[in-house]
């Protein structure tokens, strides 16, 4: 296709033939005139460009009138009819003197750069852009120099010469990037209303070739624009997003930064040939270390040998009466402990069935993004974002298989959740792990800055103020707060229903004390019932009927030892950071176990 532009490799040709003889014909050489300027009174200089290489050129003074008349223009094309290429003394560069030339075209729109088009000598196709590394290798040194000298802006304009950055290199201070990512999670579009009005928002999780993940959020216009565009599992080029430090409380992926895309951001789908499967990054937790993760918001990855697969069960969901398929598999690992993983929905029917069929081969299974629950002590549960890999090609899998084949098969393994005192409630196993004294919380006021931190504490309730609001009105169905509606009932926002009656649920702050210190402890319904010994409804009755007995009841709750599982986080209150300690679980003190624990502590102290 004849495109108006310089002759390909014109400069190379010129350099190869610095002094053409008068007799032999000069090959067709057309160059683009760039940086045309006047030196001295009547001497014009420019840089001759063929799109790839450049050469400093001087126009013979005879040709100056051509420049003045406009025949030779900057960014125009000229055909060289007679020239000489000379060396510059003491410099590696060369320069050219043009003595005869003719105009081919007036100024073009811009400096022609070598596009990767069909005219390109190399003849490589689209593939070249997406493997920039390869392209670099095949370029000559001169071409690289040219590119470094050349103005890069026009190149960035063209979709072809896209340079892909790894997510790990993104930061808020560098805006000129493009990433190539797969959508590994797509959230739903949510509407919200705040002081500024209404809006809609949704977010996606993007993963690149290295396996690094980042969360991208879109609001309002951008949300509407990209919601349809982003499809789960497809690969896109994304650029012109804004980066900021991630809010750890809400982040679901491991990345210090999170991205916001606005209407100016670019999202282009990548055609199938170039699509890749991002390497799934795992962070396996050994089964015997799952305890501390119980009921935590953080999702875990596990790998283990499947020792048992149950048939599919159908569970009815209370909230909407839907029937959901479920399957339980038991996995074991080198820690000689087993745990039950509940597979839900498609995972139960799909992969679950596959595992059942090959169960006798003791397959290794790696699972990503599991929720850790406290059923039977410790249990694992899949979410919609969990992914299961059967007999994956990972070194951990190979190790596990060889361990199982040699010794694992014979060993009788205990469930990681067993061996906990039966009287204890959820999280009781951890009543003896992460044990601290309350002074530790006082000494470290900035605990739980990013994400809440959990500890066990043995403490006594020292006081509960009888005058504070001890409870809130709750919906009997979903326990969310209800508001009094005009016609006498209670409106629940969660259930979108009006109810005649509501229940009272505790929400109070008590003073808790141990041998070292005293703190304010926020307590919710379940734990408060344990501490006070009756439900909020009953206490309310007592308060209104026999106020003195009510006060006695609160006093009776004091100076009783409890073991609490607490979470510590930071709250901002009038621009001040305050430590907020919440009781997540409360259990009565088991003296025998506590004595054992104390004896261990004593022996630890003696040893150090």
């Amino acid at each position, binding site marked *: 296709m004849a495109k108006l532009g310089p002759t390909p490799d014109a400069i190379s040709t010129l350099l190869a033939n610095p002094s053409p003889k008068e007799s032999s014909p000069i090959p067709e050489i057309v160059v683009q005139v760039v940086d045309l300027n006047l030196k001295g009174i009547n001497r014009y200089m420019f840089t001759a460009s063929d799109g790839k290489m450049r050469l400093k050129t001087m126009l013979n003074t005879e040709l100056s009138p051509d420049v003045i008349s406009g025949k030779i223009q900057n960014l125009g094309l000229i055909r060289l009819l007679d020239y000489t290429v000379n060396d510059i003394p003491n410099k590696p560069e060369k320069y050219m003197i043009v003595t005869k030339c003719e105009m081919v075209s007036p100024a073009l729109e811009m400096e022609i750069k070598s596009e990767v088009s069909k005219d390109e000598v190399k003849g490589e196709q689209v593939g070249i852009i997406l493997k920039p590394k390869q392209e670099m290798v095949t370029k000559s040194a001169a071409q690289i120099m040219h590119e470094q000298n050349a103005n890069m802006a026009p190149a960035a304009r063209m979709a072809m010469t896209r340079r892909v950055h790894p997510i790990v290199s993104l930061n808020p201070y560098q805006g000129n990037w493009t990433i190539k990512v797969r959508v590994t999670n797509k959230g739903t579009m949510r509407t919200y209303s705040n002081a500024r009005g209404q809006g809609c928002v949704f977010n996606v999780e993007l993963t690149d070739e290295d396996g690094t993940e980042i969360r991208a959020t879109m609001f309002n216009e951008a949300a509407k624009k990209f919601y349809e565009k982003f499809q789960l599992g497809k690969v896109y080029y994304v650029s012109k997003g804004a980066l900021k430090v991630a809010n750890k409380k809400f982040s679901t992926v491991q990345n210090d930064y999170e991205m916001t895309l606005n209407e100016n951001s670019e999202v282009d789908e990548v055609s199938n040939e170039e699509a890749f499967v991002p390497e799934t990054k795992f962070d396996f937790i050994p089964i015997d270390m799952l305890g501390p993760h119980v009921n935590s918001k953080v999702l875990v990855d596990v790998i283990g040998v499947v020792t048992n697969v149950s048939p599919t069960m159908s569970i009815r969901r209370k909230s909407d009466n839907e029937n959901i398929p479920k399957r339980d598999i038991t996995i074991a690992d080198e820690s000689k402990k087993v745990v039950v993983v509940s597979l839900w929905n498609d995972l139960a029917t799909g992969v679950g069935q596959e595992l059942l069929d090959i169960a006798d081969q003791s397959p290794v299974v790696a699972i990503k993004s599991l929720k850790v629950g406290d059923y039977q002590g410790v249990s694992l549960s899949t979410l919609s974002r969990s992914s299961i890999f059967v007999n994956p090609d990972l070194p951990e899998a190979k190790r596990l298989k060889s361990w199982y084949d040699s010794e694992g098969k014979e060993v009788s393994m205990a469930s990681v959740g067993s061996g906990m005192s039966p009287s204890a409630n959820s999280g009781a196993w951890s009543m003896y792990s992460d044990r601290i004294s309350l002074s530790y919380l006082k000494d470290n006021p900035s605990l739980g800055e990013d994400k809440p931190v959990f500890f066990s504490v043995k403490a006594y309730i020292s006081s509960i103020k009888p005058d504070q609001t001890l409870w809130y009105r709750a919906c009997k169905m979903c326990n969310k707060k209800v508001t009094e509606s005009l016609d006498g009932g209670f409106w629940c926002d969660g259930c979108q229903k009006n109810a005649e009656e509501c229940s009272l649920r505790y929400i109070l702050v008590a003073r808790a004390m141990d041998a070292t210190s005293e703190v304010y402890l926020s307590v919710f319904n379940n734990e408060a019932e344990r501490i006070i010994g009756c439900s909020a409804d009953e206490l309310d009755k007592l308060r209104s009927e026999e106020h003195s007995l009510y006060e006695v009841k609160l006093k009776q709750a004091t100076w009783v030892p409890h073991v609490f599982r607490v979470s510590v986080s930071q709250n901002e209150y009038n621009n001040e950071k305050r430590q907020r300690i919440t009781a997540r679980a409360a259990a009565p003190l088991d003296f*025998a176990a506590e*004595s054992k624990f104390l004896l261990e502590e004593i022996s630890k102290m003696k040893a150090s």
Partner: protein
Amino acid sequence: MDTSNPSVFVNAELLRLYVGRQVRALIQVVQLDAGSVIGKSTDEIQLIVKGTPPFPLTKFVEVIGIADSDKSIQASIWNNFGDTIDTHAYNQLCLLANGEFKHLFI
């Protein structure tokens, strides 16, 4: 209460060191006789406790009194400790209270 002679936490092994002194021990009741109780100390050795126990008597009882031999105590105070207790914890207490942390107790 006479605090001039504080009671030492003992098991059978430690009892012989404090013959003639006021001691206290946790005993698991094995057999009731007239005027005495045969019991097992927290380190599994049989001891005789002289005196009149309270009625009803629980399985575990703490006795405070003078040690009159390395195998018997003349009890003046009896405390019912119920039917379930971790004797190991008590035993460890005896060892610690008479060993490293003696200065805290006597």
